[in-house]
């Protein structure tokens, strides 16, 4: 008896022609060996197909062409940078200035560009002014 063994996987995958399908089904009814092989291959196939689908790790996609950043986002970015600089400047001024009590926030912001960070349109960044500066 010829065993059409290599048809078994194609049968499971739905890749047999109609005539091949009929031929294999007829054979399986008469052949315990091929029926056993069918069951074994079916289990292996199911096992490989049960492997978890892995998600694409973040950052795996190489950088695309440079993207034009919308003006609003760009503005927000620079406002954030300005705010960070302003916070540092205010903190330094509070710590090492000759007379912190005499420095007003308006004066500081106009001098060092901190005004942008105080504008609510530029997002959540805020200037943290030490109490010594405000109270003075």
């Amino acid at each position, binding site marked *: 008896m010829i065993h059409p063994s290599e048809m078994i996987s194609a049968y499971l995958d739905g890749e047999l022609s109609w005539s091949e399908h009929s031929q294999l089904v007829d054979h399986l009814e008469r052949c315990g060996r091929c029926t056993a092989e069918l069951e074994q291959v079916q289990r292996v196939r199911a096992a*490989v197909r049960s492997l978890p689908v*892995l998600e694409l790790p973040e950052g795996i996609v190489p950088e695309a062409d440079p993207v034009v950043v919308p003006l609003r986002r760009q503005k927000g970015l620079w406002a954030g940078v300005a705010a960070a600089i302003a916070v540092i400047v205010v903190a330094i001024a509070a710590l090492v200035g000759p007379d912190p009590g005499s420095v007003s926030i308006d004066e500081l912001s106009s001098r060092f560009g901190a005004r942008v960070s105080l504008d609510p349109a530029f997002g959540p960044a805020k200037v943290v002014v030490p109490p010594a500066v405000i109270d003075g």
Partner: protein
Amino acid sequence: MESIPLTWEEVARVYGRKIYNFAYRLTGNPDDAHDLVQEVLLRVRRGLASYQPGSFEGWLWRITRNAFLDEVRRRNRRPTSPLPDEVDRWGIASSEAADVEYSRISLGDDIQKALLELPYEFRESVVLCDVVGLSYEEIARAVAVPIGTVRSRIHRGRRMLKELLE
């Protein structure tokens, strides 16, 4: 006519995960899979401009397997690398290096380990069929072999897996 993703970003979005899973199951570790996906996406990006309408998946998986085989060849050319007898196991022969690779398989269950034991052409066909979900015809186009060869490789690959898993 087959519709294809229009841009490289869309290819990355639609096929990135499939390519990663193919790469991971073929190589057995996330770092190599990561590198392979990046290389494939870069090749897709370069190739899209000259892509001729046809079987997009066949084209994509041809690029993917070529990138994989190029990497295997590149590793095999390194003078300090062990020289495997065949294009197999991501170019790593049985050695301490292979043990290290095995230990890096984070999802290293028995099935993944058994897959790595298969000769490359059997592993490739099984993974393209059972992990990626390609038809035999698509695999034949991607691998550039007759469909009968694909049928044979998949069945023999599964039988080898059965032996390995017993």
